[in-house]
């Protein structure tokens, strides 16, 4: 399968196979008008299989979202067909308005216009907790 190179935009590479769609949703890529390609289960020498996302537009990208979903991913910034910057992702210390708390007893289930904030509490096991009720993020 061949997908063309992009001229100006971003390529999110080395996504753990199976996580591409979640990243697509959380980054809000479904609302974009430009071309977006999601490649699932591409063959990878390093990883065996990986997902890749290509966005053919110069859009702001929330690296915290990518770092949360898949800290092993890399983001390549392309300008005029050339790679201008490559960023390795890291787990962010805090997530703001990326995911919502699922605890029905949490104040975030009823309080209007509240920021949904999760804190990284266990880097080793990739655990984020709601700052309001301390419930673990799924």
């Amino acid at each position, binding site marked *: 399968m061949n997908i063309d190179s992009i001229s100006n935009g971003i390529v999110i590479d080395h996504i753990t196979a199976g996580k591409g769609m979640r990243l697509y949703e959380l980054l809000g890529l479904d609302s974009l008008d430009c071309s977006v390609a999601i490649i699932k289960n591409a063959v990878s020498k390093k990883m065996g299989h990986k997902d890749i996302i290509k966005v053919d537009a110069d859009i702001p990208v929330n690296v915290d979202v990518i770092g949360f979903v898949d800290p092993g991913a890399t983001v390549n910034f392309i300008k005029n067909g050339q790679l201008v910057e490559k960023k390795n992702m890291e787990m962010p210390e805090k997530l703001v308005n990326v995911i919502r708390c699922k605890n029905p*007893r*949490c104040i975030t*289930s009823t309080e*209007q216009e509240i920021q949904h904030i999760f804190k990284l509490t266990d880097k080793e096991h990739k655990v984020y907790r*709601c*700052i*309001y*009720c*301390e419930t673990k993020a799924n």
Partner: protein
Amino acid sequence: MKDLIDILDLSTEELNQLIATAQDIIAKPAEYAEACHGKKLASLFFEPSTRTRMSFEAAMYELGGNVISVTGTGASSVSKGESMADTAKTISCYTDIIAVRHPKEGAAYVMAQAASVPVINAGDGGHLHPTQTLADLLTIYREKGGFEGLTIGVCGDLKFGRTVHSLISAMSRYKGVKFVLISPEELKVPSYVKKDELQQKGIPYVQTTDLEAVMPDLDILYMTRVQRERFFNEEDYLRLKDSYILTEDKLKGAKKDLSIMHPLPRVNEISVAIDDDPRACYFKQVLYGKYMRMALILKLLRENGQLK
């Protein structure tokens, strides 16, 4: 702004200072009778309470201050859908300090972010109840002479029991403390509490369903009620509610200086026959709670520059 949302907002030095202040208030109440003259406490209880609400209100009156009280959501604009943040900003215009109890976890934290006066968490859902822990700590201090080297058994609803979580957080900071966690399988201490408060700090603990087997080891037995109001499913509550009932015969193997505590209200988990046992401390906890709340109100008003 200094608030009290979680017992961990207070360092061990601050806890020690609060205990010292409370002891002084007990010894010399007249010296504190006008300490908060002209100041107001807003007592916002959006969930039922006997002890905590009355304790805060009595504390403020005994400091010479006044109280504005709201109980239940029906009496306030919260029933119209007003946010906690707006409630906090509004009430900050009328009062010098807020004590709030709310059924939603994190509610007190949200209020504290928005309020321009200190906020005290008087209990947020099944999450935290730091001032109960202050009452518990003063009780332990007065009964045991200190905190180090104690084996503390917590029994009953350890999953939704916010007083248990706060007590474990507070006591895990003292040397030589060991915990015995006694509960049905379904009501065990949440894993994040075990991990953050016990495992990561290297605090020894034991989990068991058998209260009688561990009774001889305990210096403190902290009993809790299985809380109907935290269950979404009535059947689960009915199955678990009578898991542990402390009766005189169960105390046969207990230490002579065991301290029996309970944050109250009790339903049937401690038999009334134990009330006359000199080891029963739960009504002393009620009284000590008032003195610790007095110490806390003074501390927060002073630190926020509201008292000379």
